[in-house]
């Protein structure tokens, strides 16, 4: 069929300049599926935010692990979320809600509406992770879920880095979550395996890969996330391996151990994501975080 492999208009286009953000905090979390149930009774506690004790009762597993990753980031870098209330949140879950969905598909035909919890609508949708994180952190900026399936990492990075172009936010939390491997439900939605749920939380601020370190706030310029549109020739784009959240978590782990860390992947449309993290102690301290919205002209882009 004509047009199937034709280029379509996307943003950023292949001729767009690189998009770069400074990584000011990064953390990861990973839990086996059977370890997640106890976490439901331990909702995060941040100053100024009063959550109910059942806040996580119906939350998807990817939401719970994402909140754990955020909590590690805020604790490790002494971040008070009240200072980031105007930030945005981009979450890119992968196949969220499969176990709950399988359970609902089993129960609904047998018991009707009273047999299933309506929470699946709010808790197992694409925007559920970002929405829950926004409530838990007491944030007032935009929160959006993107991706949802294969290559969700690429969708998340692109959405986070382009958000700086669209909305005047001083920073963005990028949450990447997935199971490895996917949960296998039985007919009633009960898991038949014990996969690991991974989450990464990256706190991003607009920045420039092309700027010299002296132009950047402190040493934070050494920790960057970059999207390079159209980096690869079309003839070499077939069969790129899909990146994993665990790979990114490994990069963060190396930085936390004081090692310079790099991670990169190709995207099927030809773009490339590159992340480099300086040793964790070099990341931007809390007092350097802006309290107000940055003017649009503060955005810098790599040439």
């Amino acid at each position: 069929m004509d047009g199937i492999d034709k280029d379509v208009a996307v943003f950023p286009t292949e001729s767009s300049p690189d998009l770069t953000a400074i990584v000011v905090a990064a953390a990861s979390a990973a839990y086996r599926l059977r370890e997640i149930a106890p976490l439901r009774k331990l909702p995060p506690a941040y100053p100024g935010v009063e959550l109910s004790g059942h806040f996580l009762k119906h939350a998807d597993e990817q939401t719970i692990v994402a909140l754990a990753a955020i909590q590690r980031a805020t604790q490790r870098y002494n971040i008070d979320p009240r200072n980031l209330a105007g930030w945005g949140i981009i979450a890119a879950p992968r196949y969220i809600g499969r176990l709950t969905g399988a359970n609902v598909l089993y129960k609904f035909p047998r018991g009707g509406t009273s047999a299933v919890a309506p929470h699946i609508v709010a808790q197992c949708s694409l925007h559920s992770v970002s929405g829950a994180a926004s409530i838990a952190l007491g944030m007032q900026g935009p929160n959006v879920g993107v991706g949802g399936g294969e290559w969700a990492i690429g969708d998340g990075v692109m959405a986070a880095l382009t958000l700086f172009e669209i909305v005047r936010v001083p920073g963005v939390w990028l949450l990447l979550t997935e199971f490895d491997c996917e949960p296998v439900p039985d007919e009633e939605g009960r898991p038949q395996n014990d996969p690991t749920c991974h989450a990464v939380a990256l706190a991003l601020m607009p920045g420039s890969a092309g700027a010299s370190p002296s132009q950047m706030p402190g040493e934070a310029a050494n920790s960057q996330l970059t999207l390079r549109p159209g980096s690869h020739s079309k003839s070499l784009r077939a069969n790129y391996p899909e990146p994993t959240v665990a790979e990114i978590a490994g990069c963060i782990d190396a930085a936390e151990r004081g090692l310079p860390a790099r991670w990169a992947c190709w995207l099927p449309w030809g773009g490339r994501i590159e992340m480099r993290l300086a040793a964790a102690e070099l990341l931007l301290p809390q007092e350097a975080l802006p309290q107000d919205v940055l003017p649009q002209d503060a955005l810098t882009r790599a040439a």
Partner: protein
Amino acid sequence: MDREQLRHSLADLIEQETWERPDDFGDGVKIREGLKLDSVDLLSVMLKAESRLGVSLDSRDFDKITTVGDLLTTIQRKMAARATGKAA
């Protein structure tokens, strides 16, 4: 079922929903702030109440419910209407 029996029954449902039995389930307690139920929590409780008590609630009923007293009164009115219908 009188009002106090209904109150006890609804407190059971809310305990199932929130893992906590409400300390205060008096008429004046606000659903959202006092019981920390969001709109989906309330919908879930009401679906269970419908099943347990045999009444049917629609979205217009939800708009009027802000306190425990509103909740009890709404359900009692539905139960009374159902009983009247059956008697007729």
